[in-house]
């Protein structure tokens, strides 16, 4: 259908009035939204709060929305040339100003930027670049099947990423291993990396339950909490070390998983999600109210830090013992402990990943996936759905528990505050965004969802807005997740079928 590039195509005439009307609607909509959200701002002044108005920004936002919508319509209607020039000019000016500002802050070029926030300015510039790229693409492939093309492109990317996981995986792992020794790695960046790695591990753990077994679990944080409290309580009551407690924390969490699993065996879909949500809250409320045992809202402090095979990371070890730096004859550095924590969580995450990849190819793993596909069919071929579900809950919960004890040892202090529903939601978002069942996708999504917001701290409360908007966009464009692609666990013809497959 698509004419070869280079030939002129006859396009339906553009209804200028309709185009302007549509763009104006969007501008009015953005204006109405921004009037309240952006137009007024409270500011601390001596003697109280003062309301500052920023109506200029509201008008700029509406204008940007108008122009952006116009550009989208033109692209949709196969008229990329004005968009091409417009976005190029805009991006060039913006980049010149922004880079100029970085190079010479004294010149006060920010006066000429449309928005007050540097991050927003960068984002708008990025948007202009995306428009430019899109315009170039449309110009080169003047094809009608734009949406279908994008879907297919993303599917192909997902498939390629999945197939080349053998290359990408070790590469990313290599980067992760050398990361603490790179010159850029300071305390702040390492902390973010630890946070991201924690969510990668939790995402991989939840992926077993949600991605493989297809059991929508909205209370995953409960197992995280059980793991954290198991370690904290065992350590403070019985004076046990991290490595002794780690398996116990996993076992306790797995037990909690089975406890949750039994009542929900017959539930599916939405009903299951509601019960798991309730379970997550139950655990938190118990931790909050069982004051004698868990110290309730006061939390548990003084949780022992992990040691390197018995060598603590302290500057001045107690007499007669050695610490990490003195044993290895190194200069004491507070970063040592952070780097050790970093490697610890990377190792835990790797164990989770290795286990998942391995178990997927075993009968249990296949049965989990079969359960996700069709429970009735499972029973008809003799798979015990009860045991299969319980193992999925237990093993997913176990990794949540490992993650929890890591959290406890890293923070040194835990309280029920850390285990609210939003945590479950974020972990689930990591899994869904990455692509259910895709290991690399989950890692990728954790970097995007956990790492990027740290860099956008300047946006304050709009971070969550952007987070929500990103989720909506993913659900519209890639409902199965960014990198959702399933490779069979076993192939009859690893090199492709002997006879050419007929096209379907």
């Amino acid at each position, binding site marked *: 259908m698509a004419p070869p590039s280079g030939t002129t195509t006859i396009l339906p005439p553009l209804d200028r009035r309709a185009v302007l009307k549509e763009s104006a609607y969007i501008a009015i909509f953005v204006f109405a939204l921004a009037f309240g959200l952006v137009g007024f701002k409270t500011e601390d002044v001596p003697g109280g709060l003062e309301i500052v108005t920023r109506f200029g920004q509201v008008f700029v936002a509406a204008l940007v929305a108008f122009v952006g919508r116009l550009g989208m319509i033109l692209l949709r209607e196969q008229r990329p040339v004005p968009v091409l020039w417009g976005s190029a000019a805009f991006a060039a000016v913006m980049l010149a100003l922004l880079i100029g500002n970085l190079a010479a802050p004294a010149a006060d070029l920010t006066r000429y930027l449309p928005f007050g926030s540097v991050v927003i300015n960068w984002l708008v510039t990025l948007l202009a670049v995306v428009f430019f790229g899109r315009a170039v693409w449309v110009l080169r492939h003047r094809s009608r099947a734009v949406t279908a093309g994008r879907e297919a492109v993303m599917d192909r990317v997902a498939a390629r990423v999945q197939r080349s996981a053998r290359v990408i995986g070790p590469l990313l792992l290599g980067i992760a291993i050398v990361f603490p020794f790179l010159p850029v790695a300071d305390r702040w960046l390492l902390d973010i990396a630890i946070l991201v790695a924690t969510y990668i591990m939790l995402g991989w753990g939840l992926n077993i339950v949600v991605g493989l077994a297809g059991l929508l679990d909205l209370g995953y944080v409960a197992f995280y909490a059980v793991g954290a409290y198991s370690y904290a309580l065992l350590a403070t009551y019985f004076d046990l070390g991290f490595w002794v407690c780690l398996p116990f924390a996993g076992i306790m969490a797995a037990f909690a998983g089975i406890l949750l699993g039994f009542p929900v065996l017959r539930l599916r879909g939405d009903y299951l999600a509601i019960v798991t949500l309730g379970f997550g809250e139950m655990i938190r409320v118990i931790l909050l109210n069982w004051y004698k045992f868990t110290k309730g809202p006061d939390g548990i402090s003084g949780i022992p830090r992990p040691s390197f095979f018995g060598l603590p990371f302290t500057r001045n070890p107690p007499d007669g013992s050695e610490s990490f730096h003195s044993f290895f004859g190194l200069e004491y550095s507070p970063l040592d402990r952070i780097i050790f924590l970093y490697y610890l969580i990377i190792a835990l995450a790797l164990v989770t990943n290795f286990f998942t990849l391995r178990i997927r190819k*075993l*009968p*249990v793993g296949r049965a989990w996936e*079969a359960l996700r596909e069709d429970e009735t069919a499972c029973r*008809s*071929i*003799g798979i015990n759905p009860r045991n299969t579900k319980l193992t999925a809950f237990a093993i997913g919960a176990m990794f949540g528990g490992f993650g929890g004890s890591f959290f406890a040892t890293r923070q040194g202090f835990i309280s029920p505050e850390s285990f609210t529903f939003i945590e479950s939601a974020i972990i689930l978002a990591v899994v869904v965004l990455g692509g259910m069942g895709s290991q690399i996708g989950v890692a990728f999504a954790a970097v995007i969802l956990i790492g990027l917001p740290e860099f956008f701290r300047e946006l304050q409360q709009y971070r969550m807005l952007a987070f929500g908007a990103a989720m909506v966009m993913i659900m519209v464009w890639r409902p199965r997740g960014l990198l959702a692609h399933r490779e069979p666990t076993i*192939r*009859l013809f690893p090199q492709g079928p002997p006879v050419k497959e007929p096209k379907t």
Partner: protein
Amino acid sequence: MNGNGGAHGLIAVEHLTMRFGGLVAVDDVSFDGADRQITAIIGPNGAGKTTVFNCLTGFYKPTVGRLTLNHPENGQFLLERMEGYQIPARAGIARTFQNIRLFPAMSVLENLVLAQHNVLMRASGFSVAGLLGMRRYREAERQAVDLAKYWLDRTSLTERADWEAGNLPYGDQRRLEIARAMCTKPVLLCLDEPAAGLNPKESAELNKLLLYVRDEHRIGLLLIEHDMSVVMEISDRIIVLDYGRNIAAGTPDEIKNNPDVIRAYLGETEDEELPATVARDLQDSAPRS
């Protein structure tokens, strides 16, 4: 009431009744199914055929009745007392569904390997040996793939072994479901309308496959089917249900000429007593349909 031609009784259904609240879906049905025989269950829509299947394969617990399966190796099983998933696993009854139920996102081969779940599960030492990558498990998996290959070959699906099951054409999905059921190594195969939606050529191939299963694998088959070209050609015995009751049983020829069956399929006149001439006309016209 059913002489089954002297063959070994594989499955015996006695006084099976299934009520859903006030609705009696199956009412005091008794029949036998034999080894190395194809027993067809026919009847108009809503006659309770699928309900009988669901009772046999453990999806429903019968209200009344006894279902006995004589497994040639594992002994006797009382199906109404077993949990659903144990019936295929231990008693050796496999089934297919009226609306195909595969694992659509998984590959064809995976579907067949999954059917051997319990064997593989034991071989993998409930995952421990499997996780450690022990030889015992790898050997068991190889055997599972071999069995899968055999059935792929029989159902001419070998070329598409690595396809997603959900992407197969309809006829292939039907055959794959039968292959999957056979991979559980059953002694009784229950097929719920296997020819539904197949074209005449595919139906003929299906007939061949079912006869092959009966003759080479020497197992019993129970078959629900509306397609009379399949039923009459391959069945050894036919059982007719109507409104949950067993109204006739016998060989295809006997059934073709049974007045009750004809009445069930063509309906009754309002008059209680059918004039003799009309009855004879009906009888003559019915079998040809």
